[in-house]
């Protein structure tokens, strides 16, 4: 185990009833590394990153995040404190204003005062370029704005690692880039990121490593340059041909 290795996933197995979603998945992530996970739907990529912060349980294998094993008592809570997550459906709290969405975690889980939490929230809203929306309800924002609020909400917890579960899949095409821009900036700042996405342009720009999953297994990994030039497996090649043809 090297010092800068923040996520270690070893021989992870999971099944939903008879259906094996993850089969012997091994993946190590170093501090500051950006990993893009892609694959056809049902390949287990979302399930994999949801296992990392304990939203899904696994049957066997091990996950260690920043030296904390998910299986140790209280491990899940400690890991969640280090890991932020952005969902496909944003999952903002609809009954709270944007700023209250951002301050809830810091105030209740970290014990920040309202004043400090709001100051910090405004800082992150500026980073995602929507400070003027702070007092609005999520439903009054566009999808792209909502997803940026969701990113800011995660950042307010000062995570070491960010997980993105298809963050642009529920967005109208013209809003995808505003969310990706925020993610690119986050990557430039050195955030460790695990991103499940089909945005290959984004992958090319920021990914240190691409992980291709199919049928619950990691089929191929490599740098974007390697895999886009010459995918080693036929399955990855077929997949790339399908999503890149238009």
């Amino acid at each position: 185990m090297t010092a800068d290795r923040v996520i270690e996933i070893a021989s992870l197995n999971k099944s939903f009833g008879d259906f094996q979603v993850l089969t012997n998945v091994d993946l190590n992530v170093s501090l500051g590394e950006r990993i893009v996970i892609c694959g056809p739907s049902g390949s287990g990529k979302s399930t994999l990153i949801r296992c990392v912060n304990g939203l899904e349980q696994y049957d066997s294998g091990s996950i260690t995040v920043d030296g904390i094993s998910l299986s140790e008592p209280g491990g899940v809570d400690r890991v969640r404190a280090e890991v932020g997550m952005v969902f496909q459906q944003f999952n903002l709290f609809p009954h709270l204003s944007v700023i209250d969405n951002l301050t809830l975690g810091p105030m209740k889980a970290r014990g920040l005062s309202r004043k400090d939490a709001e100051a910090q929230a405004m800082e992150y809203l500026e980073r995602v370029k929507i400070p003027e929306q702070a007092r609005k309800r999520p439903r009054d924002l566009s999808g792209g704005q909502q997803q940026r609020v969701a990113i800011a909400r995660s950042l307010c917890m000062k995570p070491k690692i960010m997980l993105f579960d298809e963050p642009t899949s529920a967005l109208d095409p013209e809003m995808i880039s505003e969310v990706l821009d925020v993610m690119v900036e986050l990557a430039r700042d050195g955030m460790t990121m695990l991103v499940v996405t089909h945005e290959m342009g984004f992958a090319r720009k920021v990914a240190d490593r691409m992980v291709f999953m199919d049928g619950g297994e990691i089929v191929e990994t490599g740098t974007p340059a390697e895999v886009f030039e010459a995918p080693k497996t036929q399955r990855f090649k077929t997949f790339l041909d399908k999503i890149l043809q238009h």
Partner: protein
Amino acid sequence: MTRFFKIWILLGACLFLAACSGDGTWGWYVIDPSTPAGQSNIWFLVGGFWATIQLSLIATVLSMTLGLLVALPGMSSNRWVRLPSRVYIEFVRAIPLLPMLFWVFYGLPVVMKSLGFPITIDAFWGAIITLAISDSAFTAEIYRSGIQSIPKGQTEAARTVGLTYSQTMRYVILPQAIRRILPPLANQFIYIVKMSAFASVIGMQELTRRANELVVTEYRPLEIYTLLILEYLVLVLIISFFVRWLERKMGSDENR
């Protein structure tokens, strides 16, 4: 509109009944407000309001608290945590109110005494305990359906920003669920108001008991029970009105 409609129906019914009084089959004199005897009878009957309201309010508050305590473990992913909640709901829901009332009022003190906790249960608390327990199985199910109607992503998002289970419930899930839970809970309140009439059989001096007692002395069941029904109607209409107002205030009548 519908509220005015209800009031007109009510007035019409009163007039019809009053009109019947002339032919000798009705004896409205027992509750005629223009005579001293009628007045004192009316005051006696109306005097049950406070007890009925007290019973219903306390029982509803207890039922809502108990229901939540039963509902929360009922939604656990752990089967063994879920089990007691399911058993409680199925068991309580299966017992008719009246037998439960008898059991609580006559039986529970004996059970408690044999366990070394001698307590006395008067009619008031006997009725409240029974109404609250009996109703809690239904409120528990209302909470469950309301909470489960909130998308799972809300819980996941709350947990990933570091909230504990109880913080997630308190700050994220319940504030959203309450608008969906409120209308059916209000229904339960009205249900309790009506079921509180059963307290009369163990001697609780509420609306129905008062009417029964007057019937025994005056022997005019038709008129007295008619007034009794109108008393409940007024009470329920007032509650309905209040609930509509509360729903509007909390936005339960909106789609979101």
